[in-house]
């Protein structure tokens, strides 16, 4: 865990490997595989699917990102980061061999124990697949504990799909993978349309099932609506929220939705909780 005496001090991490998930350019997604410079940190480090961390570059600043590797993938952490603002642009300049800073793990996580014995449906859109990836990998690594796993994923174009190669891996293991793109492309064998429509097409059964979704706010909104149409109850639906964050430890105040701090009480919320907070969908 983090330095108890000073939660503002980050760990220095070395970038082992870095690669682009989507074509290089504005709003590209780049994945960083990092390890701690001080190996002793691993002795106290433990994270769970859904946890976040502040990733930063010294001299520029830090921002909150979800840890996109599952705790079952040992010996490294992965972050998939979309280039957008000041910090992410600076992080994108980093390549294998460089250093970054990581402060975490922060926030809550998906209640994986509670979900044991249940079927899991993961519904992601764009970079929203990043927090779902650890859930999928966790379930894959603990196959015997969980029921059926379904992965639904969409992005605007096939180029913009993150973790492209991994979906083949999932299907290879017999996991049902349903991919989508927004607009027709030549040679695209899968679904064409928005993710909420894909969801209606696949129509997973709500029985003994947990649905986990993440993506742009509009996607979350319509996916939850459609899930309810399919018979899912609010406590069967989980999502992760994002807000602007600075401290990550529930002090700086800006990430509140209602009385909840997303960085501390979130980012994982059940739809049942969110329904009570009107601001969550602002």
């Amino acid at each position, binding site marked *: 865990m*983090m330095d*108890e*005496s*000073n*939660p*503002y*001090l*980050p760990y*220095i991490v070395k970038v082992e490997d870095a690669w682009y998930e989507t074509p290089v350019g504005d709003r590209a997604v780049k994945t960083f595989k990092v390890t701690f*410079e001080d190996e002793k940190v691993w002795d106290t480090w433990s994270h769970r699917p859904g946890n976040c961390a502040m990733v*930063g570059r*010294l*001299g*520029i*600043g*830090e921002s909150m990102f979800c840890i996109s590797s599952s705790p079952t993938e040992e010996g490294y952490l992965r972050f998939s980061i979309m280039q*957008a*603002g000041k910090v*992410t642009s600076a992080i994108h300049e980093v390549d294998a061999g460089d*250093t970054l800073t990581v402060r975490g793990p922060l926030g809550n996580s998906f209640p994986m124990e509670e979900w044991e014995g249940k079927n899991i449906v993961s519904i992601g859109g764009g970079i929203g697949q990043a927090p779902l990836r650890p859930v999928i990998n966790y379930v894959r690594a603990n196959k015997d504990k969980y029921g059926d796993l379904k992965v639904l994923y969409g992005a605007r174009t096939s180029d913009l799909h993150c973790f492209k190669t991994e979906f083949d891996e999932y299907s290879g293991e017999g996991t049902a993978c349903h991919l989508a793109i927004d607009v027709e492309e030549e040679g695209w064998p899968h679904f064409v349309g928005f993710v909420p429509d894909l969801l209606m097409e696949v129509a997973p059964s709500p029985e003994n099932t947990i649905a986990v979704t993440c993506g742009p*706010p509009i996607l979350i*909104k319509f996916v939850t609506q459609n899930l309810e149409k399919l018979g899912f109850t609010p406590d069967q639906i989980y999502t992760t929220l*994002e*807000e*602007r964050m*600075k*401290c990550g*430890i*529930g*002090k*700086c*105040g*800006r990430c*509140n*939705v*209602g*009385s909840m701090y997303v960085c*501390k009480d979130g980012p994982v919320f059940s739809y049942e909780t*969110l*329904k*009570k*907070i*009107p*601001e*969550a*969908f*602002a």
Partner: protein
Amino acid sequence: MGDYKFAKDKLAEVLSSLGDYQVFAPTPAGDVVRFLEVKDPAAVTLESANSTVPPKELMFPETETLFKYRLGDTGLDPSVPDASARRLVFGIRPCDAMAYTIVDNLFSWDFTDPYYLNRRENTTLVGFACGDPCANCFCPSMGGAPASEKGLDALMFDLGDTFYVKTLTDKGDAFAKAAGLDAAGDAESKAAEKQAEEALGKVKRSIDTAGIPEKLPSLYDHPFWEQFSDRCLSCGICTFLCPTCHCFDIQDEAEAFNARRARMWDTCMFAEYTVHTSGHNPRPTRKERTRNRISHKYSYFPEKFDVIACVGCGRCINNCPVNIDLLDILEKSKQAEGKEAKTA
């Protein structure tokens, strides 16, 4: 815990005898009064009703370095204040001292914040009871009083020619000893009690907060916020001058190879406070920001920490350039017809 006193004309002497401490006291800076480190005891003023900028800046400075480093190097040099240093705040008003006890909740919640908490620990608070509350004080409504002892190590009363000092903790006793104060008798403590009671009667404004924390969430979409937000300037006066507002920003600053990560006051009234990198702003207009400020103080904070994040010092009312009156908002919120929180 004892009763002490010192003659009013000995004020400068008392302050200069506190050599062991780094002393902060209300000092005029231009036309405003602020808690500054005492360099010249003669400059200290106890005349003003309260400092313009609250003494929260002594625990949670406007800008503070979290750690320093050199670019290209990975060594981090934290600038955590020394918990064993001896600092003393002289003449802090009871409301501002009570504010610390509220903000403590936030900074010690789950993760502890060594910067704030070390300062809290190393500081002795010598309060100064209000004899004459100002026009917009409403501390009794918030669980305080012009002579409240909450959070203080010693409390001082102005009894005409003398200051009566009542020590409340060991830290307060240490102060009395260091300052070499004379013992006070029954007469002084009686006079102080009387003054406290009179001062309580002089507080003009009040609000009954019962039910407000529970009601505010139901007013989420209510148009009554617009009465206030329409004229809000979206500036930082109300929050920066609030002794309980604690939000901050963190920024990295680099000059050649020297760099630091620092935190500085930030306010939920600025549009850029919540704006996402994508350009989406969950609080796009002043309505949402005004609602968040009031709700955070009066509903979200109490929900989490069981105490309203307001001490009734009246600064936000006194200093608002467009007369957005906190008490007015709260009264209107009580009258407004609430509805069950909308489900999305």
